[in-house]
């Protein structure tokens, strides 16, 4: 597909093939994170773990929302998702958020969650940097996702006693206050 909307982005000086590749890799990071967070969340049990279930669930559902929101932009720009899901997993822009060796170690799980969010914050900051003032639609989308990743990072950091996040809870689970405008109801 060669849409004017892609031509405009090329004309503005963005390497669109490189951008599409980054969007695919970040979409892979979102969907694999949704999967790995499912396992992490299941293991957040006991006196320490239960209290973390809700924010982990919010982050898990919002990451899936990010995947959903990225897909249309990938295709609009002439890209596609890989046919092979194994390839999709392995091209992720962030490493797998695997369960720690000791799944009862809640602090270790939190550190994995935090690292995953920090990787995402770096990834979307980069996409914002390269699209700012050039590809308005991708920028708007990447910025919306970045807002939510920054909040996730702050939630997990707060539980690791790195200071208050300053945020209130979501109104509904996985509410996606910033990305919801890109999602179909």
């Amino acid at each position, binding site marked *: 597909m060669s849409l004017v909307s892609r031509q405009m982005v090329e004309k503005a000086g963005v390497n669109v093939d490189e951008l599409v590749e980054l969007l695919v890799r970040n979409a892979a990071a979102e969907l694999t994170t949704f999967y790995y967070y499912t396992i992490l969340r299941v293991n957040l049990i006991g006196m320490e773990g239960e209290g973390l279930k809700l924010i982990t669930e919010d982050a898990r559902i919002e990451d899936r929302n990010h995947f959903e929101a990225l897909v249309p932009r990938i295709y609009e720009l002439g890209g596609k998702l890989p046919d092979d899901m194994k390839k999709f997993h*392995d091209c*992720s822009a962030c490493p*797998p958020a695997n369960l720690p060796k000791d799944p009862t170690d809640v602090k270790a799980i939190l550190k994995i969650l935090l690292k995953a969010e920090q990787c995402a914050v770096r990834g979307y900051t980069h996409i914002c940097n390269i699209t700012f003032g050039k590809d308005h639609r991708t920028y708007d989308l990447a910025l919306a996702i970045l807002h939510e990743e920054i909040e996730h990072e702050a939630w997990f950091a707060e539980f690791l006693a790195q200071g208050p996040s300053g945020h209130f809870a979501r109104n509904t689970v996985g509410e996606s206050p910033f990305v919801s405008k890109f999602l179909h109801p």
Partner: protein
Amino acid sequence: MKVFTLAELARNDGKEGRPAYFAYKGLVYDVSGSFLWNDGNHLGLHRAGGDLTGKLEEAPHGEEFLRDFPTVGILDKS
């Protein structure tokens, strides 16, 4: 420490099971074990087997990420 020429470095491109090395500020790093350097490819933006000095300027991270990986030599560009 082993001294690498650019040609030797280029052979360690991470493809087809070969090690993934890159040079940065004169040191050669081995990132073969990194998920984010699978097949010697870093997010479709950078490839192993070359000198990446100066390429971190646009990256959303700094040199601290290199410290987790072993250095296996120094680069001789002469």
